[in-house]
């Protein structure tokens, strides 16, 4: 005999029933309570992100038991951005995700950007969460260079978010990567926290065992650019970091380490970095990498309208100065704990002789993002060969100081998830870098085939539901908490993410163990808890419908 969700949610449903019965006399006394409107929960379309869509449906079911009428609406990415990101005042609740990137191995990006009130208008704080206390902590953690002191602040930021629940954090997805053990020596792969085996260090360190010296990986979306001033999606950022070097790179321990620089040294105040560049660097067109190129690379995104995506990362810089042919200084207005991670490890070193004229030629309304530099000259361990509709081909630079062991990196665009798995099985792919399908199928494939190995990693990024904190009733932290606690994360992780995700309740992932505040894991869950919280806050469930406290009326 099967159990349907209605049956197993039965206990909670009866709780809601009791609550609603209890609510009747209240409503009879105070006739002024008005019901909460019907809600639309936005999500990616089911076809594009089945896990997210399913999570949304589970949430809608759970909230239904709290007396909310929730309809799930699956939209394509662009329409979803349009509804939620660009029209910030008019939505109520939406599924969203933040993805892991190498520079996010420092918590600063998420901690300062997601919930700071300065970003409500057009920045990352699209949910419109505003709390001066949080702003203070988020700003303070940036200025503290001492790691333990900063840890305390990062913990505090997580506690505030936990108390206010601007997001319903759902899971830190477990990402699965797979590779062909017959082609690659598995001891040479580098497993980076939060990123797994698919990272820059792996790509240059991995050693082929036999004649197959091409690393063939996949990406599940079409690329729309390979441009050092632009990140248009995951796939192209993997390519840019191979083609263009950075001054520092994130090392296997998740911390930044000098890369194109021999050394990066700071003054005691933490406001002036002296950078000595390597003397063995050259661009793929043969020109040497000079101090001027480094300064140009850090300075050009500061100009208005050149590289909007990179501008925030270089904005802390107030001055740069060339000391000699191998040395320059970077001056900041104030100490910045994340600067090495989010600026020096992020900004691509571009050749001034190519990009200066290109940037000068930009017309009004154009940014460097729309420039097509077909040759794509960098100084990284791989040079750009070609890019057509279906693949990007890079070839290794043998005399790079960190020369790769493989001959080429080929990134194949495979839109169909099933096809990418099939290609891994047939050997057409030897490194599955972008698998969005059923993780169980990948496990099965690995079990059936000795030459396929799967490596899982907990993501730095997370899946969540955002409340529009501008709009009642979501402007009330008590309501957000109640709605959040009504959702069983374990159920979401199991049912929507097939067990391949870790229940989440913080914007700092456990993939960053030093910064992760494990105390946030303890949260009460259940419809009864949620109902009690709502009633404490003055809300009532009448006839199975959630009502505002007396005196409050529906504004929308």
């Amino acid at each position, binding site marked *: 005999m099967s159990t349907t969700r209605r049956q197993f949610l039965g206990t909670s449903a009866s709780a809601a029933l009791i609550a609603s019965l209890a609510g009747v006399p209240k409503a009879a006394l105070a006739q002024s309570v008005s019901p909460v409107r019907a809600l639309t929960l936005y999500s990616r379309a089911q076809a594009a992100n089945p896990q997210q869509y399913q999570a949304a449906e589970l949430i809608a079911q759970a909230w239904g038991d709290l007396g909310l009428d929730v309809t799930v609406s699956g939209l*394509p*990415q*662009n*329409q979803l*951005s*349009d509804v939620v*990101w*660009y029209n910030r005042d008019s939505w109520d609740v939406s599924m969203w995700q933040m993805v892991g990137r190498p520079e996010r191995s420092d918590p600063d990006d998420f901690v300062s950007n997601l919930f700071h009130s300065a970003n409500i208008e*057009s920045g990352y704080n699209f949910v419109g969460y505003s709390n001066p206390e949080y702003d203070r902590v988020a700003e303070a953690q940036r200025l503290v260079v001492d790691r333990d002191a900063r840890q305390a602040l990062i913990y505090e930021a997580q506690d505030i978010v936990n108390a206010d629940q601007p997001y319903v954090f759902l899971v830190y997805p477990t990402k699965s990567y797979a590779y062909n053990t017959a082609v690659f020596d598995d001891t040479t792969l580098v497993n980076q926290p939060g990123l797994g085996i698919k990272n820059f260090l792996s790509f240059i360190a991995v050693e082929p065992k036999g004649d197959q010296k*091409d690393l*063939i990986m996949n990406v599940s979306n*079409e690329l*729309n*650019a390979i441009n050092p001033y632009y990140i*248009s999606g995951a796939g192209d950022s993997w390519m840019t970091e191979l083609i263009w070097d950075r001054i520092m790179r994130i090392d296997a321990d998740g911390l930044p380490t000098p890369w194109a620089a021999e050394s990066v040294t700071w003054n005691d105040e933490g406001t002036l970095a002296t950078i000595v560049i390597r003397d063995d660097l050259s661009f793929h067109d043969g020109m040497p990498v000079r101090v001027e190129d480094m300064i140009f690379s850090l300075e050009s995104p500061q100009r208005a*309208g050149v590289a*909007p*995506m990179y501008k*925030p990362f270089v904005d802390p810089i107030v001055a740069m100065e060339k000391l000699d042919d191998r040395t320059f200084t970077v001056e900041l207005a104030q100490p910045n704990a994340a600067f090495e991670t989010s600026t020096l490890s992020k900004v691509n070193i571009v050749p001034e002789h190519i990009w200066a004229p290109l940037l000068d030629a930009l*017309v*009004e*309304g*154009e*940014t460097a*993002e*729309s420039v*097509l530099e077909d040759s794509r000259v960098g100084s990284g361990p791989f040079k750009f060969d*070609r890019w057509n*509709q*279906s*693949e990007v*081909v890079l070839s290794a630079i043998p005399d790079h100081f960190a020369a790769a062991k493989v001959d*080429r990196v*080929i990134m*194949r665009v*495979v*839109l*169909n998830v*099933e*096809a990418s798995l*099939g*290609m891994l*099985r*047939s050997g*057409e*792919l030897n490194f599955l870098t972008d698998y969005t399908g059923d993780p169980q199928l990948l496990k099965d494939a690995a079990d059936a085939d000795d030459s396929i190995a799967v490596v899982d990693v907990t993501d730095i990024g997370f899946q969540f539901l955002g409340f529009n904190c501008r709009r009642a009733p979501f402007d009330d932290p008590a309501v957000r908490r109640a709605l959040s606690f009504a959702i069983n994360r374990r159920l979401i992780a199991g049912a929507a993410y097939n067990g391949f995700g870790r229940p989440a309740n913080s914007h700092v992932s456990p993939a960053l163990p030093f910064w992760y505040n494990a105390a946030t894991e303890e949260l009460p869950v259940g419809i009864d808890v949620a109902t009690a919280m709502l009633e404490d806050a003055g809300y009532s469930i009448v006839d199975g419908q959630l009502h505002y406290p007396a005196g409050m009326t529906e504004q929308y």
Partner: protein
Amino acid sequence: MKYVMSRLLYAILVLWIVGTILFFMFRLMPGSPLAAFIDQTTTLEQQQALIARFGLDKSLFQQYTIFLQNALQGDLGQSFFHRRPVTEVVMEALPNTVILTLSGLVVAYIFGVLAGAYLAWRRGSTVEGIGIPLALATRAAPEFWLGMVMLAFFSFYLGWFPAGGANSVGLEYDSEWTRIFSVDYLHHLTLPVLTLAIYLQGLPLLLMRSNMIEILQEEFITMSKMKGLGSRTIVLNHAARNAMLPVATAFALGIGSAIGGNVVVETIFSWPGIGRLLVNAVSASDYPLAQGAFMIITAVLVAMNFVADMTYHLLDPRIRHAASN
């Protein structure tokens, strides 16, 4: 000649009207027309500048005249997603689509004509009793479902054919021709062509059969009147040749309609053709590209309708006679 000119004019008129409908549909679509182009980090000023750059701040009518002028010069605008001229992106995909469609049609028509003639010859037999419902059934099967079944069986289960794409990983060719004529390309082409052919063969089969039957009846009547009951095969040959004319016209029309219908087959097999381009462009709200791809598909359809018209006009004396009256 006058007839040719008037049909040609209609063809151009159709293109113009379709272009106009599309233009207004995409301009009036809900959501920012630049949604696909504007990143989550672009500022309001940058959005304004972009809107000016794409001429979206002009009046709808001004935009329309600019669109028409550009389209006449073969300029279909700039793709938001690919950041390249639409014409360029579309022309890269078109050869793949044309090859897929033509191969599918050729296979379908060779099979359909032979099988149709055979069924006409075996009229009233069990073969016909099974053949016709079968032909109707394949015409009733959704193309994408046929493709799914083929993919599940021949690719994922048996592993005989690649799961999608047009070329294997990492192969490089000197020219487009060497790419298209490579064994690798053929290997990738097989399943999509087969899917398309199974779907398309029903029409020529049924058409051929009914034409054959009709002509055979006339022929046999004449023959029996002449009392010279000659070789059956000669009659069959003669009838087959005459029955081919409508089939040939249907072939031309088939190119036009199949190119539009290819959308699903291309999507199933990740075939880098114009149909998949259109679907992707529509779902990414890349409307210059969607518009461009749609226009090219329409142009092929209209051109093929025109060709079919002309073939019929030139080859069928009855029609020629009617038109001259």
